[in-house]
């Protein structure tokens, strides 16, 4: 007799965790199926957390070196092994794993270690790594199996010379040079981290600018900071093929015949839904044209008792969004009305410098409202930034012709935190005056909202400014 649960959550990443906890708190008997040894998914073990920890080490080392240079002292040797950095990251990952496991167990969620595969729409076969099989049943399912790196046919990923985003952190030493293929979030994060660690990085993308979904001023700031650290960005390049040359370098051949050699290559050309072993067709599901699971706003698939959340349903593929998708899917099963998902979802990119964005870009705003304006605050002109020696920071506010805030875009220290001030203002439908009429702590980076707001307000038509007459 197979065990029966109210809901089985497949995958223990950010979406799966939040879903399972919400369901358990709603009184359900929940099982969480995870094929990896530890829970947390790629986010914890190969993605979000390790790469952010590596980023912190790179930034910290750079800060120490800058101070040592100021004191005319010898700087920290660049030939630090990545293994040393990864060693320290293991502690971070283990701590996170412990905390999450405790949370799941506290909520009486059964963790089933094994690989799940649908037998039919209500039964899942669980294969353990010892080869044992058992079938478990549930009234509902949430599929949150995440994603894995896409392997383009023309790039020979061997995890020895050509890495993907799952294996790049196994590098035992810092190479002299590295080519990063791709212009998305993962590519830009790693490219900027390795550049800061002293590696000569070339970032190659087929589009003119990396991170094309961001406001152009943010991407310009990113490229300019990346190139100041010795990185090279090559846009509008079609890569014909990329493979180890059999000698000591990896050759990246462009469509025009140009060959670029580097010690190592990171292929970061997107991720695909990780659904291969799940046997979704046995449950009556199929992939859409983008090889993802199609869901409605609550995460419900074409099979009513099966929900999906996280990377398997596609962009934005951010841990933050996945958590909320998981919670909403659980609420869907519990019959709890969670309302409409807020339209202002922030984007945080942990490159160096950090980038964050919410709402409309300048171009999107202009397309909707030709009278819209933008205001800037450069961190080097903000007292806090001046004190900290911030070189790469700025805040850009996009404001409608009627004075209403339409978007906030931040580059630099704490930008992924700072953007939430803009997000809250957007959610309240606030006008730019909100930032001008209220007091911010001094000295803080948050003060940049006031500076950028004044700069934007000064450009608004007189009828909107009223008698205030802002001067930027």
């Amino acid at each position, binding site marked *: 007799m197979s065990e029966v649960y109210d809901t089985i959550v497949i995958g223990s990443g950010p979406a799966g965790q939040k879903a399972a906890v919400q369901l358990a708190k709603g009184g359900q008997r929940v099982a969480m199926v995870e*094929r*990896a*040894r530890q829970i947390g998914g790629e986010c914890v073990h*190969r993605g979000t957390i390790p790469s952010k920890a590596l980023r912190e080490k790179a930034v910290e080392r750079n800060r120490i070196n800058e101070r040592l240079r100021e004191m005319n002292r010898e700087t920290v040797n660049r*030939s630090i*092994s990545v*293994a040393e950095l990864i*060693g320290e990251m*293991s*502690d971070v990952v283990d701590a996170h794993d412990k905390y999450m496991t405790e949370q799941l167990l506290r909520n009486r969620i059964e963790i089933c270690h094994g*690989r799940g595969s649908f037998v039919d729409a209500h039964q899942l076969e669980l*294969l353990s*790594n*010892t*080869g044992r099989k058992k079938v478990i049943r549930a009234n509902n399912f949430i599929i949150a199996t995440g994603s894995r790196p896409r392997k383009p046919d023309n790039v020979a990923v*061997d*995890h*020895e*010379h050509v890495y993907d985003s*799952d*294996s790049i952190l*196994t*590098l*035992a*030493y*810092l*190479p*002299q040079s590295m080519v990063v293929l791709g212009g998305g979030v993962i590519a830009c994060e790693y490219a900027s981290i390795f550049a800061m660690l002293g590696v000569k990085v070339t970032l190659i993308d087929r589009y003119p600018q990396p991170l094309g979904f961001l406001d152009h001023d943010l991407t310009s700031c990113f490229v300019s900071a990346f190139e100041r650290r010795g990185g090279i960005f090559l846009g509008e390049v079609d890569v014909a093929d990329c493979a*180890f*040359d*059999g*000698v*000591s370098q990896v050759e990246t051949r462009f469509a025009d015949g140009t060959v670029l050699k580097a*010690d190592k290559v990171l292929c970061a050309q997107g991720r695909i839904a990780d659904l291969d072993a799940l046997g979704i067709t046995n449950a009556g599901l199929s992939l859409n044209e983008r090889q993802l699971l199609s869901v409605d706003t609550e995460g419900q698939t074409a099979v009513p008792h099966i929900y999906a959340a996280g990377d398997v349903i596609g962009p934005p593929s951010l841990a933050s969004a996945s958590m909320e998708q998981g919670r909403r899917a659980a609420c869907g099963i519990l019959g709890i009305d969670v309302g409409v998902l807020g339209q202002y979802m922030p984007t945080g990119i942990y490159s160096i410098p950090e980038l964050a964005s919410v709402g409309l870009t300048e171009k999107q705003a202009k397309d909707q409202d030709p009278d819209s304006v933008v205001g800037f605050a450069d961190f080097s002109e903000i007292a806090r930034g001046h004190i900290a020696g911030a070189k790469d920071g700025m805040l850009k506010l996009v404001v409608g012709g009627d004075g209403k805030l339409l978007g906030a875009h931040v580059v630099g220290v704490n930008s992924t935190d700072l953007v939430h001030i803009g997000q809250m203002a957007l959610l309240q439908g606030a006008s730019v005056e909100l930032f001008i009429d209220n007091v911010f702590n001094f000295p803080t980076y948050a003060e940049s909202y006031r500076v950028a707001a004044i700069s934007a307000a000064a450009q608004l038509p007189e009828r909107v400014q009223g008698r205030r007459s802002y001067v930027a």
Partner: protein
Amino acid sequence: MAELAKDVSGLSLSVQQALDNGDVDVPLLPSVAAEVLSSSLDDRSNATRFAELIQQDQSMTSHLMRVVNSPVFRGASEIVALQQAIARLGMERIREIALTVSLKASVLQPGPYDDLMSRSWYVALRSALWAREISRLTRKNVEVAYLCGLLHNIGEPLVLNCLGKMTESASPDEVAQVLRNCSRQAGLLLVQEWALPSAVDLAIRFRGEFESAANAKDLVAIVDLARFISCLKELPICEQVVDQAETQHLNLYPDEVDALLEQGENIATTLETLT
């Protein structure tokens, strides 16, 4: 260590004392091996400098040329120059071959336990090749795994050499017991004398005890699993590998173990060439 001393035979105790007192002939680390080891966990060494180093060693060059001209590595035409070999096989592979050849020449010294010494070397080499493939499968560092596989039992030849100077007539059981009791200590001595990378230290220190290896559990499990496969006379069947604690720690599912074991033929061919 006091508890261990109670169980060890007199021979084990003598070898341990010899190791403690530095009364053993620690072989010099060959310059080629030193170059490979010093750069393997750090920046890449310059290919030209490395080629020059190999060419200075006549025996090394001839041995290397024999290996690269074997059916496994040789292409359509004969390889007649070192630079040609590097171009054909790649610097990484040449470095591995050079390390293997130079270490073999250094640690395998003639003595009464030659057969055991050769067997130990064979297991080391086979472990290195399996460790590389397990690492690739589990997304761990391939180069470090090869190195640790190759050196995980580097203490054994030193122990056998030391034992050979004490007695030429130890029974197989006695030799096995001495190896069990003293190889780790001898290996760690070589780690210190040769300034081997810390990953090798961990692979030796925690051999057979991956659960105790703190942040190096995965690495030690990879090397131990590679050793398990390498010590078997025949290629194991999937179930034998699946049952190992190391396999479960590395979270390898039966289909992944099958895929791993499919590398057996390639590994056997490479092994034949290198030995």
